């Protein structure tokens, strides 16, 4: 598999799995408006995954659906951050914000890519991610504006920090650290990043659910 395909699949898997995790709030988010907004963000992420899978599929001679659903859990290349199942709002927001911040850094490098297909998809994604970032940032403002919120956010960020670092390659991590530290107004501990490709047990459970319908139908079924 080429380096290009590997990169496309890493990002596509991040977006697919995070989209799936975020969609777990549909119907049970803290209030109706947030439910709609967060579900919409989840749908966008899955749309981004599809665009990236299509690029990879063209190279591999397969389809986006096959890449999304027909691989084994251990073949996914997503970062552990998106696999974690934390159905608790402060952690969800912290993960969302950490991911969007890392993704912004990653997208900036992809937009500058010599590969015009990758640069093009990255630019399109970034135009939607801008709203995800606005959404994440306003929640961070909100959480930082009260003692209780700040405590809960900081606790969640501490827990997720090694995972967040794992979203990016080595050379991009200092930028992520600088942004997160400046936003929170504090230093984050020096920790070992959780490397991409090391999967959490939660991924297998998610995969079971995510691929259930696909696996139940004979190959080539039309939907």
């Amino acid at each position: 598999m080429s380096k290009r395909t590997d990169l496309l699949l890493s990002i596509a898997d991040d977006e697919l799995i995070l989209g799936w995790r975020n969609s777990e709030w549909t119907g049970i988010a803290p209030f109706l408006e947030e439910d709609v907004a967060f579900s919409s963000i989840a749908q966008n992420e899955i749309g981004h995954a599809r665009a990236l899978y299509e690029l990879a599929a063209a190279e591999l001679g397969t389809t986006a659906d096959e890449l999304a659903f027909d691989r084994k859990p251990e073949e996914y290349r997503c970062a552990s951050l998106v696999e974690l199942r934390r159905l608790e709002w402060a952690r969800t927001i912290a993960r969302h914000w950490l991911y969007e911040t890392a993704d912004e850094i990653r997208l900036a490098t992809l937009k500058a890519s010599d590969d015009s297909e990758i640069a093009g998809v990255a630019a399109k994604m970034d135009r939607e991610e801008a709203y995800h970032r606005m959404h994440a940032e306003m929640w961070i403002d909100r959480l930082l504006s009260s003692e209780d919120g700040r405590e809960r956010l900081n606790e969640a960020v501490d827990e997720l920090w090694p995972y967040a670092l794992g979203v990016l390659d080595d050379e991009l991590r200092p930028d992520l650290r600088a942004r997160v530290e400046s936003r929170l107004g504090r230093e984050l501990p020096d920790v070992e990043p959780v490397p991409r490709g090391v999967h959490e047990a939660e991924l297998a459970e998610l995969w079971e659910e995510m691929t259930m319908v696909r696996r139940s139908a004979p190959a080539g079924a039309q939907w």
Partner: protein
Amino acid sequence: MIWEVFRQERKGQPFQHAGTVTAPNEQFAEIYAREQYGRRQESVALWLVAREAVSEIDEFPDEFDLKYRRVDGYSIKTRLREARERAGTLEMAPGGAEE
């Protein structure tokens, strides 16, 4: 806080009341309105108005029952046609000529 949301379906059309969003501040309201009333490309623009900013008028006294101000039961179509004929503007009226 409750925000009244108005949406415009196509450029040039009037904004129509779409519904409300409940949000703690304008920033949240904008995100929520965008997602609720714009994510399916059903709007080209939205207006958000804090409910407190809306002035409502809901009293219209008519103590003397001035029926002649209303047009119920009054065939304005025929009267208007006759008036237009007199003024020679029938041709210019929308749909006037073929009636």
